[in-house]
């Protein structure tokens, strides 16, 4: 196969969770995203240091990468290891942000020292407020996102609250997430 590269247990677990997620298993998908977000956080913080990005933008990057993974999950090739696929998307996001910011100033060493310690300290409140970007998403899509996210409703419950069909909520939610991702890409952090 690809000589020397062995699949870590972690990647096998991700791979099987993702396969279940692709057949519609919501719980497996949540586990997958949670597990991936921890690894992403470590990776992104290291990357922020390397690219001279402030550490407080790390959580934004984690979220952007998760959103991107979500929207691209149809493109994951199940016959290949999942890790490289995830890391490639994360790396692209990181380079993207670094380029947008055009900051190349190295970060003081003291801050690098803190990375290990502060790892999951505030397991992720991002500075970037998606709420702010939400205002620019189409009203129907925004309502679907807000109802499902803030009120924790299922698609069916949201349909009841919004007075529409379950299918319409699913479509609006998916399209809303897609436009959020597009907005994130165009909107500098």
């Amino acid at each position, binding site marked *: 196969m690809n000589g020397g590269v062995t699949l870590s247990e972690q990647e096998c677990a991700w791979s099987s969770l993702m396969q279940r997620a692709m057949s519609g298993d919501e*719980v497996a998908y949540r586990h997958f995203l949670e597990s991936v977000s921890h690894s992403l956080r470590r990776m992104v913080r290291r990357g922020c240091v390397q690219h001279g990005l402030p550490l407080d933008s790390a959580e934004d990057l984690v979220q952007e990468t998760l959103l991107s993974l979500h929207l691209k*999950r149809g493109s994951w090739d199940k016959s290949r290891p999942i890790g490289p696929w995830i890391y490639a998307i994360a790396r692209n996001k990181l380079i993207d942000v670094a380029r947008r910011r055009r900051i190349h100033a190295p970060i003081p060493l003291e801050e690098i020292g803190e990375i290990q310690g502060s790892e999951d300290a505030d397991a*992720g409140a991002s500075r970037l407020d998606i709420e702010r970007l939400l205002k620019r998403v189409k009203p129907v899509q925004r309502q679907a996102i807000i109802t499902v996210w803030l009120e924790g409703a299922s698609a069916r419950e949201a349909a009841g609250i919004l007075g529409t069909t379950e299918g319409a909520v699913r479509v609006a939610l998916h399209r809303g997430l897609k436009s959020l991702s597009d907005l994130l890409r165009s909107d500098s952090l």
Partner: protein
Amino acid sequence: MKTADLINLLAKDQMAAQLSGIWFRRAMCAATASAAFLLLCFIGVREDIAQATGTWKFFVKFLVEFSISACAVMALRADVHPGTSSRRWIWAAPALIGTTALVLNCSETPISSWRTQWLGHTAGSCVGLMLAMGLLPLLAILLAMKRGAPRSPGRAGAVSGLLASGISGFFYAFHCPENSYLFVASWYGLATLLLVAIGWAIGRRMLRW
């Protein structure tokens, strides 16, 4: 926004997982409808259909084409949906049915008649009409596959072509006046190969991501 909230939100969006399935079903409906429409409105069923229904040779064509289509559908599904096994052994079904029909056909007819059976009377129109009936189904299936990000674009295109040939062959068999499996194996076979090649050529460009 907290990352945990975002994860909850993403987990509730099941569209990405379901999308390709919905489109594949729609494409299958469109493919079958277009082939049936061409048969009924332009090509027409064979005139001796009443007598033909009394012979096994009439029915086995449908069996072969249907089993090819079913195998192709399962192969495409497995290609698009991670987690489903591809079960290659199912391809034995169409191969076995087809070979049995061919052997049976040859064993009950004299060798001297094989050449005329093979050429038949409608070889040209058989290949042309099967191709014509298969192009719209092929396009519909490829469009649905495009939403699913298959593993290997060329192979997915070729299997899409095979599925299109199964659908077009199934409906063409209502029209086809030929009763020999020497004819079916050659000319249905040629049309199938052509559709597979077209599917492969389009698929390797169109299904790339």
